[in-house]
């Protein structure tokens, strides 16, 4: 494999800055890699070679002319197809948006364009971000570069697979219940969910408005930090965005040190239900942190046991409302009902939504409609919002005792395709460790913690911090990464089986 595509974003940026490489070269190398392997991996739903190369050229010219450019200028990036991109098809992994070309850019895309990152294309995802395996994409699943018969995680499996297989050094994901962090864990990459409101949601096709956040997908903690700094900050177009500057994340990575740091291991996020190999790698990380000077204790967050239940009431409720706009009237799919002459608007809506939405989406819309319906609101949605308060209180109490919290990111390694499709609840359990952070709005990162002995597949460790303290998750994540790279003598991804095109 060409060194260019193995390089980190930080290294690529440095190389361009030093005049050793051009963005066009780098972008072309990525495009070549995509052409080579994506037939097997199916990480991308759309590739925009012309657009990416045009941006690359523009950046190279600017640099040659001596203009100041952003830190990541010229570094190619892939974007999860839940993010609206002007002029590029945006499907959200669904048939109902097949062929939709947005007339506007998400704020984070505007920032990427202004900074001069060539956009390679849009990555695959579970339909409307509902899933933990990318098997619910209407366009077919993406595959895990570590084992093509296994899932890459979800809902952002495409972005994680793209980065893990070196098709892109960076990607954008979104995380509502773990959709950045869990794919990172099962693909041996890094993924972070910012504090709620830390990154603009304007232009993110909404799943659960009070839970969604966009964030970085990368191969190193530093790369993720650089991307996060570029994306984050106040957006006047998003009423829920924090009116505060992004914390100094890159500095936190460079300062990586945990001496005297209080680390809390969350009792409820571990133990039974977590694969043996996942726990083993996690315990090793705890040991390494202790050796590095951290004070590790156990903390208890008893209401985390109710997090999954609350999440699977809040998310479908908000989603059922957010997805109502897909009704065949203004854009997207329009399908007339079978055997009805002169159908009404209502009939066309119902037929289109039946044809355009997949099973999981229908399941959650019906669930959400139920949870909000009159007579059930108090018992379901209303109660779930109370559990949210209890979870926030648990976090607050835990953060009195610890500066960061630690847990395995996901209970298992990558499972085989089809293994959990027939059992929705089993599928939902993949998010059991990641969901509490979304409910509370606190930031989290997943960094690779090694391979599970029993199957040789990647595992991840999750670091959580109080709201607005994103720098802490990067600091601790960087320490863990450094300690493990030292122990392994290289990155985890270096041990991945090489993926070469079979076409």
């Amino acid at each position, binding site marked *: 494999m060409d060194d260019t595509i193995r390089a980190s974003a930080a290294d690529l940026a440095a190389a361009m800055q030093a005049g050793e490489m051009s963005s066009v070269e780098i972008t072309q190398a990525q495009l070549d890699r995509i052409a080579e392997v994506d037939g097997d991996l199916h990480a991308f739903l759309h590739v925009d070679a012309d657009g990416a190369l045009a941006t690359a050229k523009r950046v190279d010219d600017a640099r040659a002319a001596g203009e100041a450019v952003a830190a990541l200028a010229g570094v190619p990036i892939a974007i999860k197809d839940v993010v609206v991109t002007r002029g590029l098809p945006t499907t959200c992994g669904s048939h109902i948006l097949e062929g939709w070309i947005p007339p506007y850019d998400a704020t984070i895309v505007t920032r990427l364009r202004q900074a001069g990152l060539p956009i390679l294309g849009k990555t695959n995802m579970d339909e409307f971000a509902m899933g933990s395996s990318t098997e619910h994409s209407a366009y077919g699943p993406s595959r895990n570069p570590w084992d093509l018969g296994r899932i890459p995680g979800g809902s952002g499996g495409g972005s994680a697979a793209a980065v893990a297989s070196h098709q892109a050094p960076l990607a954008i994901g979104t995380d509502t219940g773990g959709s950045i962090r869990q794919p990172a864990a099962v693909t041996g990459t890094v993924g972070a969910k910012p504090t709620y409101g830390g990154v603009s949601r304007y232009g993110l096709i909404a799943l659960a408005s009070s839970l969604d956040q966009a964030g970085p997908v990368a191969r190193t903690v530093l790369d993720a930090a650089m991307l996060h700094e570029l994306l984050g900050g106040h957006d006047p177009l998003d009423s829920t965005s924090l009116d505060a500057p992004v914390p100094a994340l890159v500095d936190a990575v460079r300062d990586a040190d945990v001496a005297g740091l209080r680390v809390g291991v969350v009792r409820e996020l571990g133990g039974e239900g977590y694969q043996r190999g996942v726990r083993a790698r996690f315990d090793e990380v705890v040991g390494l942190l202790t050796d590095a000077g951290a004070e590790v204790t156990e903390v208890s967050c008893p209401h985390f046991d109710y997090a999954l239940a609350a999440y699977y009431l809040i998310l479908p409720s908000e989603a059922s409302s957010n997805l109502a706009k897909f009704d065949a009237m203004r854009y997207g799919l329009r399908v007339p009902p079978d055997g009805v002459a002169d159908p009404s608007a209502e009939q066309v809506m119902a037929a289109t939504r039946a044809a355009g939405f997949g099973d999981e989406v229908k399941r959650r819309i019906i669930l959400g409609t139920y949870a909000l319906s009159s007579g059930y609101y108090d018992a379901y949605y209303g*109660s779930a919002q109370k559990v949210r308060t*209890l979870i926030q209180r648990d976090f607050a109490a835990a953060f009195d005792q610890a500066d960061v919290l630690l847990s395995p990111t996901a209970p298992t390694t990558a499972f085989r395709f089809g293994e959990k499709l027939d059992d929705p609840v089993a599928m939902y359990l993949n998010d059991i460790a990641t969901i509490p952070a979304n409910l509370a709005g606190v930031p989290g990162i997943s960094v690779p913690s090694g391979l599970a002995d029993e199957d040789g597949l990647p595992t991840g460790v999750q670091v959580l911090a109080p709201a607005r303290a994103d720098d802490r998750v990067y600091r601790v994540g960087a320490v863990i990464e450094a300690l493990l790279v030292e122990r392994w003598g290289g990155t985890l991804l270096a041990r991945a089986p090489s993926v070469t095109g079979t076409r």
Partner: protein
Amino acid sequence: MPADLPSGGALTREDVAHLAGLARIDLTAAELDHLAPQLAVILESVAKVAEVAHGDVPATSHPLPLSNVFRSDDVRPGLTAEEALANAPEVEQQRFSVPRILGADE
């Protein structure tokens, strides 16, 4: 107590059909058959929230405490009509053409 759903209690096939109507999704008979038990299982697991959600616990609708987020009353250009209509399934007289609305009151 919930009177709106046909069964008024556990989630039946009829309940699912009613909800699908509210959500404007035509479910096939097969989908109704397999959705109802799946949803019932999910609901059982999520019903446990009621165990801890007591009256004195306030609900959280917004994770981070923001308030009074406003914009000033300024006009900025938006989309052109062409951009707005570009993805429309059908256009007539520069408007979105939709099938006949059974409609309530205008």
